[in-house]
């Protein structure tokens, strides 16, 4: 971590959570909030049972159903018996171990990374973990938040701690202002293309600079969400007035004198001016434009206004062969303008872009227009759904011919029936364009909600300005 006399934000939060430090051992770090979902927890609860252990702090643990959730007929039993068993297993485990659960049909249900912030459970300076790599989302509040595997889920359930080595720190400084129509999603896709899918390995990234400070909390969550796609386990942003304003009045946010004390502490959560980062990356936001991926990893992206690159464009042999493979899988030819790529399905949703602001952005473009692709609009939580309906966004989507769904992870990873058919091509606001991610043989282009909506209207990858 930082070697100056000053300390980085990540270092401050880390030090605040060290339970035990011993020479030659990882730090034992306290975990303030443990989020649980149905996919990565069953074997962890089984492990507790086998060892005769209990959940140490059920009051710092919360569960929801999201990955397997069907987004139509959410109240009907899940048709897929394997998915149904997984969801029922979570319900049984939550009841047995005393963990609060937001099941399907509950007004509080939703994607695990949408409901934490929504409830005010994610706060500055906390440590947050979940058996899901997109836990980095919560770093938007100035928390150290990261994904863990099932063995670690079991460890946190049993001890409320994790043994961890301190990662190095990286500052990603984004100066200037994002041009009109360029979003947090475009920014993070550009960052990943710049540093690569392994660029953040071993680091906690702090996003800083004018363009970051200008983002809403929802935009900050989009940026931090995809830290993992740059290889960083965690990414965070120093809390400020935008953060406090978002948190004020949320169900689990501090109240009264506690609020004042908390805000006073939260204001100290910024990297000191003389803090030294192990690595610094700089970007100029004003040079960015809508960004899309053309390949099969999130680092294979380019401005929408450009063309599909050729493998020969890459000097590194591994990158060149990866590009070659990706173009074959994606059925794309080098030199094709990205605007000419025809799309079959548009997906707006996920923990990356399934919040109210994202739905508003899509609705603004779809208002008074018709979609020509299959278009799924999937709110990130039931509360986002209700808020969108209160504003009439559902009516806009339906009038445009899009499908308005219930809350869940949906087509981001296709564990529910929302999948691409083999060979089908999507423009998706989700976070991963891996081979088969959205359905076996499916092809994914990652985009912002704005580009997704404009693409639904034309059937080709399209920026809103092109409409």
């Amino acid at each position, binding site marked *: 971590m930082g070697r100056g006399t000053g300390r980085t934000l990540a270092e401050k939060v880390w030090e605040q959570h060290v339970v035990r430090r011993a020479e030659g051992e990882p730090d034992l770090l306290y975990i303030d909030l443990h989020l649980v979902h149905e*996919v990565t927890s069953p074997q962890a609860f089984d492990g507790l049972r086998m060892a005769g252990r209990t959940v140490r702090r059920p009051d710092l643990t919360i569960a929801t159903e999201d990955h397997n959730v069907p987004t139509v007929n959410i109240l009907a039993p899940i048709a897929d018996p394997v998915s149904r068993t997984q969801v029922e297993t979570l319900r049984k485990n939550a009841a047995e171990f005393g963990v609060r659960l937001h099941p399907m049909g509950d007004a509080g249900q939703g994607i695990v990374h949408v409901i934490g912030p929504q409830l005010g459970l994610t706060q500055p300076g906390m440590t947050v973990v979940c058996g899901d790599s997109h836990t980095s989302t919560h770093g938007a509040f100035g928390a150290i938040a990261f994904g863990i595997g099932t063995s670690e889920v079991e460890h946190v359930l049993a001890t409320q701690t994790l043994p961890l080595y301190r990662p190095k720190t990286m500052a990603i400084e984004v100066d200037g202002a994002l041009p009109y129509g360029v979003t947090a999603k475009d920014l993070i896709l550009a960052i990943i293309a710049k540093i690569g899918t392994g660029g953040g390995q071993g680091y906690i990234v702090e996003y800083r600079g004018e363009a970051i400070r200008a983002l809403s909390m929802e935009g900050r969550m989009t940026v931090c969400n995809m830290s993992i796609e740059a290889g960083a386990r965690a990414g965070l942003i120093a809390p400020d007035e935008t953060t406090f304003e978002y948190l004020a009045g949320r169900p689990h946010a501090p109240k009264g004198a506690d609020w004042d004390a908390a805000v006073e502490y939260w204001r100290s959560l910024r990297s000191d001016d003389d803090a030294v980062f192990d690595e610094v990356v700089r970007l100029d936001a004003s040079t960015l434009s809508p960004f899309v991926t053309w390949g099969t990893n999130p680092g294979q992206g380019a401005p929408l206004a450009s063309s599909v690159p050729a493998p020969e464009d890459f000097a590194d042999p591994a990158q060149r062969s990866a590009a070659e493979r990706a173009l074959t899988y994606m059925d794309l030819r080098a030199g094709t303008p990205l605007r000419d790529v025809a799309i079959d399905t548009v997906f707006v949703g996920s923990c990356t872009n399934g919040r109210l602001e994202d739905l508003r952005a899509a609705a603004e473009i779809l208002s008074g227009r018709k979609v020509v692709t299959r278009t799924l609009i999937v709110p990130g939580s039931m509360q986002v759904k209700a808020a969108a309906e209160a504003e009439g966004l559902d009516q806009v989507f339906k009038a445009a011919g899009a499908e308005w769904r219930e809350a869940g992870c949906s087509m981001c990873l296709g564990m529910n029936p929302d999948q691409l058919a083999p060979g089908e091509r999507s423009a998706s606001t989700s976070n991963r364009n891996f081979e088969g991610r959205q359905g076996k043989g499916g092809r994914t282009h990652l985009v912002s909600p704005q580009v997704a909506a404009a693409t639904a209207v034309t059937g080709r990858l399209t920026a809103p300005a092109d409409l």
Partner: protein
Amino acid sequence: MEAFTIHTGRAVPLRRSNVDTDQIIPAVWLKQVSRTGFEKGLFSAWREDPDFVLNNPAYQGASILVAGSDFGTGSSREHAVWALQQYGFRVVIAPKFADIFRNNSTKMGLLPVILPAEVVERLQDEAEQDPTAEITVDLVDRVVRAGDLTVSFDIDDYTRWRLLEGLDDTGLTLRHADDIEVYENGRQPWLPTTV
């Protein structure tokens, strides 16, 4: 966790970089609630291609996967580690690993070995030329031996000790239950609870 000391086995060359966990075990396999049976899902989409390296009979029974850079990127699914182990792998060698995958591996006793890209390529070449050639991965001395090649690798002392002993982290941490309690008593009162 299964202890790991010294392992000798044959190698499979997987000449791909950025092998993500969705390829190692596609999401459809994650619906199981048990810890077993994941070997069938290992690289299940790629295995449909008859030319995929794991379909080559010469590599049946190999236990060391030699892969390209950034192995295990993406999802935190530990199922990726279970699938590799249950298929029969004890070691993955690559120039770089994604953090969560590497962490999950060391919790389960699958040894991730980081070697320079040129060494990894040489091991891949050798495994292609002679699929019967054996590699020894020695965690005690932190070296990999293959033919006349002996190359050392880095792993921190603590993780090495845990792997050599086959120790489970939770049991180790619970020895410090008093420290956890002391810490908990000093937490800020405004921190949220989920109840």
